[in-house]
């Protein structure tokens, strides 16, 4: 295995991770909810009137993050090489898959593992495995 030492960013990775953990901590301890984006967004498609506000507020917070970041520093690089068609296909698969699997990287990967949930540990291993496999097929077998 070859490690990309030039792009390895251990400190910002740990600090950013700690912020993500702190956000999840605030959310469960103050609002009593799991900070899982799939569940928060998915619930808006089955709207219960009194649930709409907090769901929208959380998503609005995510959307506002780049603007808030920009008021202190320049945004780091964002590179998306995928074509628009591939993005649409991937978005569809992610939308359907996360709802059937009841969660994504936030709900299962961060909150679920922190709860020591067996379901979430299995879900995380499953999407990590196909994530790695998909990149392997696309980059190394198809040579894209």
């Amino acid at each position, binding site marked *: 295995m070859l490690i990309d030492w030039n792009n390895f960013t251990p400190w910002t990775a740990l600090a950013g*991770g700690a912020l993500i953990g702190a956000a999840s901590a605030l959310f469960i301890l103050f609002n*009593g909810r799991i900070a899982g984006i799939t569940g928060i967004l998915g619930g808006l498609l089955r709207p219960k009137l009194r649930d709409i506000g907090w769901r929208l*507020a959380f998503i609005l917070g995510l959307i506002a993050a780049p603007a808030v970041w920009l008021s202190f520093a320049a945004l780091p690089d964002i590179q998306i090489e995928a074509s628009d068609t591939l993005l649409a296909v991937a978005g569809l698969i992610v939308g359907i898959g996360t709802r059937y699997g009841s969660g994504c990287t936030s709900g299962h990967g961060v909150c679920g593992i922190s709860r020591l949930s067996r379901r979430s540990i299995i879900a995380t291993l499953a999407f990590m495995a*196909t994530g790695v496999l998909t990149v392997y097929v696309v980059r190394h077998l198809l040579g894209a």
Partner: protein
Amino acid sequence: MKNHISNTAALTFSLLSGLIFGLGLILAGMANPAKVLAFLDLAGLWDPSLGLVMGGAIGVAIIAFTIAKKRNLSYLGFSIQLPTNRIIDKRLVLGSLAFGIGWGLVGICPAPAFVLLGAGSTKGLIFVVAMVIGMGIYELLESYGKSSHK
């Protein structure tokens, strides 16, 4: 006990949690799909950073969830709603396997998708719209499945 979190304090904490979550994603490099793909590319030049993102997040969140498990009410007085489902079924495994394929194709998962949208990325917008349509398809399949079983 309040089941519905709808007062001003709750909305403020929702907004704040989403914002801190998003800032964390940006700082961690998770909002850059190329960096996410570099983490998933074990056979190429591997960037292990995102493993540390997960480690840092879990290291902090595990304390909060340990506290939350012992409480019935949140600090704002809302019921703490932890998932109760313990069943490992086909839906969980197949859904997660599918999610990983979509994630591996472009390097975007649901939370960073909204950060990309906020950064003004058209590609982020395309992904978010497709993802919401995907979730809508799930809702349709679910309601169809339920009505056909009656």
